[in-house]
């Protein structure tokens, strides 16, 4: 390589390996009796205890195995660094709770090795270092993309639904199924708002029986959902995949350095192309309760205000306008200035003189976290985590407490 002077270093790398993941609770395979764990007050005495068995065991439980292979290179070209990697991770024996029908009567679902899943991805990092007498800085950019696909799922119904919450529409919000990314959003599609009684009547006339299109109380101002299977009736079979919480790509840019006595750092971070299920909007716009409505409801449909996407205000949501649908799916892309700081350091010689050799160093600075966020997401914060760390509820914003924007003014003093 010595002969190619432009390249100061080049490393090619490739690896393949297998890891196990055993996030299995202790003795999870056993069907345990909850002995003397509930009370029933026969004769009004609260000392009568009861024992129950409410969760199946699974003697076939084993590790989740992930086979990873990757290929990449690290290249330095003088002031430039480039690092790139392609990888594939295939997980077999995926550990998930098997969803059970209510009628089986178990209170919780057993963990099982239900399927396999594949992640393929690409990572790229570019760096540049600038050196001069007064101005030194470095710039690092990163770019990640990942594609997820469930390859197989061996639950009784070959699907796992998740995210059901009575305060957020009452239906599940995600579905995991072979051929789709894990926990994709799953629900109905909005087909506009019924503008007149004639439109409702025309919809009700569809289909081959006298059943209404949605239900008997559908009225002008209610949402019309899409009849995907064309049977003239909206039911569970008209649900479809509505997008994924996984971004198309994510990126970051870190720029930091010094100019004379100034120092600075700024870190941009962003994701692109992911979807968020905006549960805050279900609460704020759904008019399900007498409280917590957002100002969106001022734009609710009325015979005079027809050019809106907010349905009519009606007690009890008879048309189930708040059911899981793309009405609440939003683009979760954002670009955020995660960190920014700027500081100035006073020269030490003059300080020592002024302070009689007590203080050797003074740095004043301003820094901020989450200073600016560029996003179309209408909820509090586009960085949505999974509530209760549920593996299948990522990207559902159940009203997560938003991250704070901080601005910090500070002084660093160094004493002799």
């Amino acid at each position, binding site marked *: 390589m010595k002969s190619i002077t432009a390249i100061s270093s080049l490393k090619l790398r490739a690896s393949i390996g297998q890891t196990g993941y055993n996030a299995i609770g*202790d003795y999870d395979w*056993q*069907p*345990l*009796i*909850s*002995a*003397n*764990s*509930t*009370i*029933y*007050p*026969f*004769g*009004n*005495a*609260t000392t*009568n*205890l*009861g*024992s*129950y*068995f*409410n969760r*199946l065991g699974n*003697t076939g439980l084993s590790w989740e195995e992930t086979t990873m292979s990757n290929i990449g290179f690290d290249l330095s070209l003088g002031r430039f660094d480039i690092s790139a990697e392609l990888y594939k991770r295939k997980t077999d024996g995926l550990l998930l709770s098997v*969803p*059970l*029908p*209510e*009628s*089986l*009567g*178990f*209170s919780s679902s*057993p963990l099982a090795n239900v399927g396999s899943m594949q992640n393929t991805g690409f990572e790229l990092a570019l760096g540049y270092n600038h050196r001069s007498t007064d101005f030194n800085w470095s710039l690092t950019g990163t770019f990640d993309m990942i594609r997820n696909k469930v390859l197989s799922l061996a639950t*009784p*119904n070959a*699907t796992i*639904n998740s995210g*059901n919450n009575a305060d957020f529409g*009452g*239906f*599940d919000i995600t579905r995991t199924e072979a051929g789709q990314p894990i926990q994709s959003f799953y629900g109905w599609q909005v087909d506009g708002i019924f503008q007149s009684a004639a439109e409702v009547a025309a919809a009700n006339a569809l289909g081959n029986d006298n*059943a209404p299109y949605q*239900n*008997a*109380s559908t009225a002008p101002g209610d949402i019309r959902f899409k009849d995907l299977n064309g049977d003239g009736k909206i039911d*569970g079979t008209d649900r479809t995949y509505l997008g994924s919480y996984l971004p198309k790509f994510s990126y970051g840019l870190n720029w930091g350095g010094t100019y004379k006595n100034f120092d600075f750092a700024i870190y941009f971070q962003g994701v692109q192309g992911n979807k968020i299920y905006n549960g805050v909007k279900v609460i704020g716009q759904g008019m*399900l*309760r*007498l409280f917590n409505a957002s100002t969106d409801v001022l734009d609710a449909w009325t015979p005079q205000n027809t050019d809106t996407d907010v349905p009519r205000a009606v*007690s*009890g*949501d*008879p*048309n*189930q306008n708040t*059911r899981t649908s793309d009405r609440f799916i939003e683009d979760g892309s954002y670009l955020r200035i995660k960190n920014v700081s700027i500081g100035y350091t006073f020269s030490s010689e003059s300080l020592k003189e002024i302070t009689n050799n007590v203080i050797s160093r003074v740095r004043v600075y301003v820094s901020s976290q989450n200073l600016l966020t560029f996003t179309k997401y209408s909820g509090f914060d586009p960085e949505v985590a999974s509530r209760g760390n549920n593996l299948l509820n990522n990207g559902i914003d159940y009203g997560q407490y938003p991250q704070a924007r901080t601005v910090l003014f500070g002084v660093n003093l160094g004493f002799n």
Partner: protein
Amino acid sequence: MKKIAFLTSIMILGLTLSCNDEVLDKVNPNGVTLDTYFNNDAELTAGVNAVYALVQHNGLVSREWFFTHDLRSDEVATGGGQLETPRAQLLNGVNDAGNSVSNSVFTGWFRVVHRANVVIEAGAAAKPGISDAVRTRVVGEARFLRAWAYYELATLWGGVPLYTEYAKSVEGSKARSSQQDVYNLVISDLKAAETALPATYTAANLGRATKHAAQMLLARTYLQLGDYNNAKTELQKIVSSGLYKLVDNYLDLTNEEGEFNAESIFEVVYAPSGGAYNWGGDGDGTAVQEETVRTQEYSAVGWRNLIPSNKILNDYERTSKGDAKSDPRFDMSYWKPGDKFNNGASTMTDDRVQGNASVVDGQTVKISWRKYSVLYKVDNGFFTSGINMRIMRYADVLLMLAECENEAGNSAAAISLMNQVRARASVQMPPYPTANYPCNNKDEILRALQHERFVELASEQVRNFDILRWRKHKKLKTEPISFFVANKHELLPLPQTEIDNNPNIEQKDQNPGY
């Protein structure tokens, strides 16, 4: 050479002693597994106690069960905007497969079925540690509770999956059975329970199902099926037992002091727990929180989510309507402005009562449910109580029997049974026939009977099932439910989660109209 021989023998030893899988299947030393439990009387009894505990929990009798029944009846109206959406949807007949209230009742009853099945299987064979007397009784209780669960499920949802043993694997779910098959299981369970269960219990065991509770549930099942003859047989067994009578004070039927009185056949037990209410999924845990939230949900001071409908309020006999006497049960069933509560220390005023008003006898007035309301003795903020829910009482037996006699053409017997209920010491309504309720023929007697059941059993979770069976057997002159659509509202929708997760149930198996 010695070294090699030594290493070789170690390796051979290693091969022969290589671990077998069973060594790795460590059993939790702190837990009790299913196959090592249910070995003695106490453990089997604890098993059935847990079935009662589930019946009692928030998803069933302490909350969602009475809501589901009442919201589908014509007894209630919305208390106001505070009524949550899934409840309002049931009240207006626009509930769907995502309705959290009816879904929790569906889920709750199936968890009862599961827990009962565990006990029935554990007690199926004789075991050295378990006495035959306990085994017989406990299995009888479990079969009674399974029957109750399936009676409710079949009547509310129609033909549901039928499990006579608990699922041993995740693949165990079943397709829908026919409604008749579910009722058949109910009947065979209740016949077995009737034989197995004692007629009475000691004070410490009050609340366990008795022989007569099984007979009454069997009678109710026969009435759903329109089988008046068999219903009559069961009801007569209860009457001829001589164990029950009407109590004098109508208030004792829904207050705390009157629990387990001579009129009571089966109660779901709640006990004072210092105001603690168990909101948890299955009502489990060993913290003492055995109260019910009924007062807070319905009563005058509290959330007041549901109030009595104008229809029921105006159904009571009144001198202003030309009746000989105003029915005293009206005052004993509802809170009205000016009523004294909190042992007489507080007075009901409109500013204490949130939400909608009713129109009674032409007057607009704020009226609220009083049955099961603990306000009569407290006024303390959040109202939970230890008042038992009276699931079955003797007045209902007499009225059902009156209905059977009327169907059999025995008018005199029917009228006399109804008049027994009206003659209660604190009620003393003039006997039928009256001016407004003549009893000259079968239809007129049925009309009087339907009125009598409406007012006597108001807000005791019998009206919904009465309407369902009367409608089915063409005993209604007018449809009582304003939103009723035939071939839809007879049944509730199966939960969408059941359709999504049960490989043997598809969308096309959903109940009609949903």
